[in-house]
């Protein structure tokens, strides 16, 4: 549906789950727009379902049957009278067929037009567009390939190490780095399978793997009236399994001059692609400060909060206004950074054991609070983190006057964040924040392999933990068996409360 009326939506369906669905709905609430969520069998008790004004069941737990089930989501929007769909990130957010289906069914897809998603979503076509508009790209293939022997031949030409990437990819799914020929076949097969599971498309291609690059991306906003601006950069170099875990802005690697140049390149990339709505142009920055186009993410990024913190701009609000056909109210000169923001992704995974997923029940949690602390969170005490979906639990974001203070604030916020019952990388993130390498801003994509190759936690407070163990054992008997404490003239709440368990 083409909207130039500028009439604001009354009801929007959020076709996602977890923390991002909640984050979007919070802005919708502020804008006085009704919220519709969708949920699968596994998400009957998920926070996003509980938060929304209305929720529609869209299928079984497997993503293909629910959050990737286009027909069910369209039906949910029609039934509830939602005028637009916000896809969040992952799932259908970069699916051109879904955007096209929305257009056909006269539902506004909050994102770029289908053909733009299609062009940019195919990482190989995106490379071709960038080459044409003089945006530098990394050496590699511009066509996807399924034949293993052709891929092996191409890898030989590029020279190992090479990076296998999913043509439809993003978020590190279906991505593999291969250092030698003998690993190539297994890696391609695993990447194809992972890509097909995550995106419904198993096509892969190869790029030369740059050593020690930084991952720097530029946030853009483009309206339907041809106006494009950028909202500065995010540095997202610290990754595990090719997936970001810490992001910040500004990047300590960029001079003002380089920042301007990359911002300009991102705006021309967006214009060349006919881009509309919020998007991100990702670049690799090598040791000589040369930047290369990596890909355009045609959606709201996981790490968008760091940009919101330093610019004071609500990106979701602008996405919705743009989708409603409004003109961008911001111009480039309105955009400036204040202070420094850092985001740590809190995944349900075990940092001591190769970041293995750690789904399960959250027995208790307490979120950190305080000035400059934001936690975009999709879990709660008593919630069981399902095995079917991405293990992101929340994104802890801090904002402070400068990088040094932001690091200190993040350390305190992490220490104050309690999640009992499943494993999280919180102690690992604290150690990264405390490391000299991070403090110096020495953040490259091989940061974890270089500085934390076999990380083990320093359990320096074990003596306190022993004391806590005993304190818990001895004081717990009171709450569990109030009959044993009839030794006071003044009954305490524990004596009168019976077997109540908060």
């Amino acid at each position, binding site marked *: 549906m083409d909207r130039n009326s500028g009439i604001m939506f009354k009801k929007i369906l959020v076709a996602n789950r977890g923390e991002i669905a909640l984050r979007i709905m919070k802005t919708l609430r502020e804008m006085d727009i009704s919220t519709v969520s969708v949920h699968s069998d596994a998400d009957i008790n998920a926070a996003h379902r509980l938060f929304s004004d209305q929720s529609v069941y869209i299928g079984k737990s497997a993503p293909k049957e629910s959050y990737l089930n286009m027909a069910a989501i369209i039906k949910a929007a029609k039934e509830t009278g939602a005028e637009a769909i916000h896809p969040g990130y992952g799932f259908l957010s970069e699916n051109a067929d879904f955007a096209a289906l929305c257009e056909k069914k006269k539902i506004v897809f909050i994102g770029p037009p289908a053909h733009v998603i299609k062009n940019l979503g195919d990482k190989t076509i995106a490379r071709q567009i960038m080459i044409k508009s003089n945006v530098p790209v990394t050496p590699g293939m511009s066509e996807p390939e399924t034949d293993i022997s052709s891929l092996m031949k191409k890898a030989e030409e590029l020279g190992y190490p090479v990076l296998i990437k999913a043509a439809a990819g993003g978020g590190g799914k279906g991505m593999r780095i291969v250092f030698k020929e003998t690993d190539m076949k297994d890696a391609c097969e695993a990447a194809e399978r992972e890509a097909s599971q995550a995106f419904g498309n198993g096509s892969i291609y190869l790029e030369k793997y740059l050593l020690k690059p930084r991952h720097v991306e530029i946030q853009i906003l483009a309206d339907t009236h041809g106006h494009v601006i950028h909202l500065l950069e995010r540095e997202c170099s610290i990754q595990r399994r090719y997936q970001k875990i810490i992001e910040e802005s500004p990047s300590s690697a960029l001079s003002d001059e380089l920042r301007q140049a990359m911002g300009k390149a991102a705006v021309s990339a967006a214009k060349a692609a006919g881009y509309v709505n919020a998007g991100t142009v990702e670049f690799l920055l090598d040791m000589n400060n040369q930047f290369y186009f990596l890909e355009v993410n045609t959606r709201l990024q996981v790490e968008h909060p760091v940009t919101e913190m330093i610019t004071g701009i609500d990106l979701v609000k602008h996405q919705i206004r743009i989708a409603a056909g409004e003109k961008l109210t911001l111009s480039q000169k309105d955009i400036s950074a204040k202070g420094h923001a850092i985001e740590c992704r809190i995944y349900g995974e075990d940092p001591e054991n190769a970041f293995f*997923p750690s789904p399960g029940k959250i027995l208790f949690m307490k979120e950190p609070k305080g000035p400059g602390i934001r936690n975009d969170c999709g879990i709660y005490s008593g919630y069981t983190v399902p095995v079917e979906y991405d293990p992101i639990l929340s994104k802890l974001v801090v904002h402070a006057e400068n990088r040094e203070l932001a690091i200190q604030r993040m350390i305190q916020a992490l220490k104050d964040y309690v999640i009992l019952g499943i494993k999280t990388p919180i102690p690992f993130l604290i150690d990264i924040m405390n490391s000299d390498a991070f403090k110096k801003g020495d953040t490259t994509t091989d940061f974890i392999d270089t500085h934390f190759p076999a990380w083990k936690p320093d*359990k320096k407070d074990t003596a306190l933990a*022993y004391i806590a163990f005993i304190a818990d054992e001895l004081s717990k008997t009171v709450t569990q068996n109030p009959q044993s404490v009839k030794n006071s003239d003044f009954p305490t709440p524990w004596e009168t409360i019976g077997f109540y368990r908060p």
Partner: protein
Amino acid sequence: MGNHRLLPAIGTIPLPDDNTEKYMEYNLKQNDETKKILAAITEGNTLTLTMEEKDIQAMVTRISDHHIHMDLDDGNGRKGINVYVADDNGKKIIVINGMPYYIEDDDSHRFAKNKKRSGANIPDVVTPPMPAIVISVLVNRGDRIEKGQKLVVLSAMKMETTLTAPFGGTVTKVNAKEGDKVAPGDILVDIEKEE
């Protein structure tokens, strides 16, 4: 004390009925290290602990089921800390300043060990390291397999992992199929070990 003590803060530790010092011995274990600790309730809500020949006093206030405040005094000044606790599979998870500690009572551990001689803790079985979904089973009943051979591909939260044979032998039974939800402790493939 006794009948005239002040109303304690919510959930503080009760004074034992006979009001005498009772020492309890705890053998607490983290990973493979066990420590002996003597604990006594010395005042209404104060614990006196002896650990590695050091005495520590802890004034304990239970805030909720999972939150305890402790005022510690090791003779070099007082310090207040918040600890967060939950019982999980026979262990206690204790979080202090962002760091989780997994601590078990070694006495009960010994007991549990005797009761359960086989199962998930023995490494020689094919069992998932976490709750997962079976992507594919690569062997059939009757197959002869070698140590390290790939047996089952699993996926948890969209990450793939492959279980391999802990030893060479013959597959006597396959207990999982594609799409099954499996958990640690489930034996996915039975193997008769080659002598």
